[in-house]
């Protein structure tokens, strides 16, 4: 008994999935303890949806093992599905169905569902109760989809980009919900390409790109791996020599032009470094604009690791 309860809710080893031409997931490892929230963070096309759909049993892995609540999601799906809640990246309702009708259908499939009327109201869908699904806004469709994932009181939920297309207010509501799920002991695996979201919600963040894990840890581990580090960003003429600037700065400062005209200095940024940067720019005859000093964010971590912007 205890060994089953101690096992992670989701355990992925060496997961690989290829489609003709692309390797969507490339030897991915993942471990999500029960009752925790894990965020799979990565840009579009990183392999998040493929990974989640493999855990749900909809995608058959080409290599590797996947164990969800101790079950094989493909061969034991009939045992697994009653225990999980699924919010797919898009869709998930009849084009002509009304929100409450859809939710009642999904509720009928569960033994002890939440009250559909309450959930509809909680998610702010009462006002569009009679609107066919295809005429709901993207954010409303997302909220219905989230309701369908939660209605059956699952022990594990998969949320694929739960806040995509939502206004800030709805996003805050979803964050509240995820926190409430965690408090009540529900295990959550969510995907996002928003670092604030991962930082705000997750116990564990797994950053993936090109189907591979590029970093993982708690949000604070990821952002404070180099605690002394800070960052200085500024905009100036594109194509200035980052090597010359680096030479003017203390040895442990690194300089990159992250996109044309956008420069990033990372290292022990102190007032002296800031003044050196502005002075060096002045020597080049340019003005350093939008100068900003800050702590490393997950986005910076991602940028450092992959050289790519997370938002895409």
């Amino acid at each position, binding site marked *: 008994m205890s060994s089953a309860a101690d096992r992670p809710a989701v355990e992925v080893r060496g997961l690989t999935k290829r489609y003709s031409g692309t390797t969507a997931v490339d030897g991915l490892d993942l471990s999500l303890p029960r009752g925790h929230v894990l965020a799979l963070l990565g840009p579009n096309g990183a392999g998040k949806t493929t990974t989640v759909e493999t855990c*749900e049993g*909809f995608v058959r892995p080409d290599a590797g093992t996947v164990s969800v609540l101790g079950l094989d999601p493909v061969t034991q799906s*009939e045992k697994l*599905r*009653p*225990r*999980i809640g*699924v919010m*797919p990246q*898009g*869709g*998930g*309702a*009849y*084009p*002509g*169905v009304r929100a409450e*009708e*859809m939710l*009642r*259908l*999904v*509720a*009928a*499939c*569960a*033994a*002890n*569902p*939440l009250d559909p009327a309450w959930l509809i109201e*909680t998610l702010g869908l009462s006002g569009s109760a009679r609107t066919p*699904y*295809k005429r709901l806004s993207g954010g409303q469709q997302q909220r219905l989809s989230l309701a*369908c994932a*939660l209605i*059956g*009181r*699952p*022990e594990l939920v998969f949320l694929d980009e739960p806040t995509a297309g939502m206004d800030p207010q709805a996003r805050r*509501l979803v964050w*509240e*919900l995820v926190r*409430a*799920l965690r*408090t*009540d*002991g*529900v295990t959550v695996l969510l995907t996002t390409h928003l670092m604030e979201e991962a930082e705000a919600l997750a116990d564990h963040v797994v950053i993936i790109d090109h189907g591979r894990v590029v970093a993982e840890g708690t949000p604070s581990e990821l952002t404070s791996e180099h605690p002394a580090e800070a960052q200085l960003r500024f905009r100036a003429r594109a194509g200035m020599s980052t090597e010359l600037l680096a030479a003017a700065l203390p040895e442990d400062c690194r300089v990159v032009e992250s996109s044309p005209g956008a420069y990033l200095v990372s290292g022990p940024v102190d007032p002296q470094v800031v003044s050196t940067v502005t002075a060096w720019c002045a020597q080049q005859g340019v003005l350093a604009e939008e100068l900003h000093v800050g702590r490393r964010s997950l986005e910076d971590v991602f940028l450092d690791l992959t050289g790519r912007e997370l938002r895409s």
Partner: protein
Amino acid sequence: MTFPAGTFTPSPGTGRLGRMLLTHARTEAMLTLRNGEQVLLTLLIPLALLVGLTLVPIVSLPDPRVDEVTPRIFALAIMSSAFTGQAIALGFDRRYGVLRRLAATALPRWLLVAGRVVGGLAVVVIQIVLLAVVAAIMGWSPDAVGLLWTVVLILLGALAFGALGVLLGGALKAEVVLAVANIVWFILLLAGGIMVPASSMPGVLGDLVALLPSGALAEGLHGALVSGAPGWQPFLVLVLWGAAASALATRTTKLT
């Protein structure tokens, strides 16, 4: 907004089978009856043809005309909802990820099919009752013994056409399904033994059309309702189409 602790405490499990089946089937049937295009296809066109062909002598038919027209309109109605309507709905439901949504719940796979079948049969019952009432008002006098055969033929026809509808709607892109389902409907209506009886077509053509599901259903219903003797061939033809389409559809149907 804050949620009281314990709101989401896990309590997973599978719902009661009867309730799942009933809710699923009712949702499917309601969606069909609420959809304007589906109502046009499954109810209004058959009703208009029933009344029109009975009252307006454009085609020459033996009297009473309503007895000749009604069995063929039954066949049309079944083809319209079980084949064309089902295929189009399934094509778009797949596009919208409905099948995957339901497969992701505790709903067992066989119930996913059963719910659609029962929902579709409920629509067929409504169609037939409505058409029969209108036909009766126009003086329809079906053969009493034939009514029993009629029930069996309607069931077999709905299942055979339904399986063909799933085969089409479960395999191709929604827009392609829409086009193909409508074209096939039109061809079978005009040349598949519904408007023009297979028995009145020349030679081999008539024999072939009687082997189509549309021809078999129309001939069978006509035989049952007019003379009380549908013969064995329509039953066999419908069972074979249904079995072949189901066998193929279980291999080709995709969730998305």
